[in-house]
């Protein structure tokens, strides 16, 4: 598997989130994703991107287009140096009805992607990796 191309983007304001959505959409289109698959990864990026800005104190996003033989994929890595997630397993549980908080974005985003990984601890920031393959 190789990385065809990569770029980094800042995630500090809600305008950055808008730019991130556009950049992810462009990559998904270039990788030949169907409209539904594009929508899924852009939505996942929007979820985690907002988390990074709203709860992570801002951070960066690394976007990569991957190639594995015939398949192409898009991988996104969100990094922030914020307060970190206190209870990761709680945050990953399905629970949407009401409320605010990190948990809302994570479990949903995970469902929208083929690959998902989150590393976080109180005081150590948060790193979320998600990837979708065509």
């Amino acid at each position, binding site marked *: 598997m190789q990385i065809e191309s990569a770029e980094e983007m800042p995630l500090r304001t809600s*305008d950055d989130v808008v730019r991130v959505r556009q950049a992810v959409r462009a990559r998904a289109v270039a990788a030949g994703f169907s409209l*539904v698959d594009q929508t*899924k990864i852009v939505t996942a990026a*929007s*979820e985690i991107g907002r988390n990074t800005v709203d709860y992570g104190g801002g951070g960066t996003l690394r976007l990569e287009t991957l190639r594995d033989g015939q398949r192409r994929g898009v991988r996104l890595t969100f990094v922030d140096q914020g307060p970190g997630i206190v209870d990761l397993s709680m945050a990953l549980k399905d629970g*949407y009805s009401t409320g605010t908080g990190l948990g809302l974005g994570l479990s*949903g985003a995970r469902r929208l992607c083929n690959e998902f990984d989150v590393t976080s601890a109180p005081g150590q920031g948060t790193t979320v990796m998600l990837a979708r393959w065509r």
Partner: protein
Amino acid sequence: MAEIPILKIGDCLLVSIQVDMHDRLALALQDDLTQRIVADRARGVMIDISALEIVDSFIGRMLNNIAAMSRVLDAVTVVVGMRPAVAITLVELGLGLTGVRTALNVDKGLALIRRIIDSEELDADRVG
């Protein structure tokens, strides 16, 4: 900062979401809507999301909030124009749009609001 225009159609209010929403705009919209529902004695609120390429949990919460507030003010909320790719993604995301009715487009949305209001009035007559 752009404001989202709210149109009046009969006793309904129509809001078309065209731009990327962030916190301030969403709060401003919710404020404006609640004011207008009262001021115009609106019975229905239609939110047109046909321009939205994605609906994430932030937008979902906003829609749920609007529906809840309208309900308290005795108005029906209908979301119209959801794109198929968005609907499929929302279902996968597991985001429940509680208290939000949906219709394919503005025409059907208006018809739906009419039906609901009429049947509610029918029920009210029966009880009263």
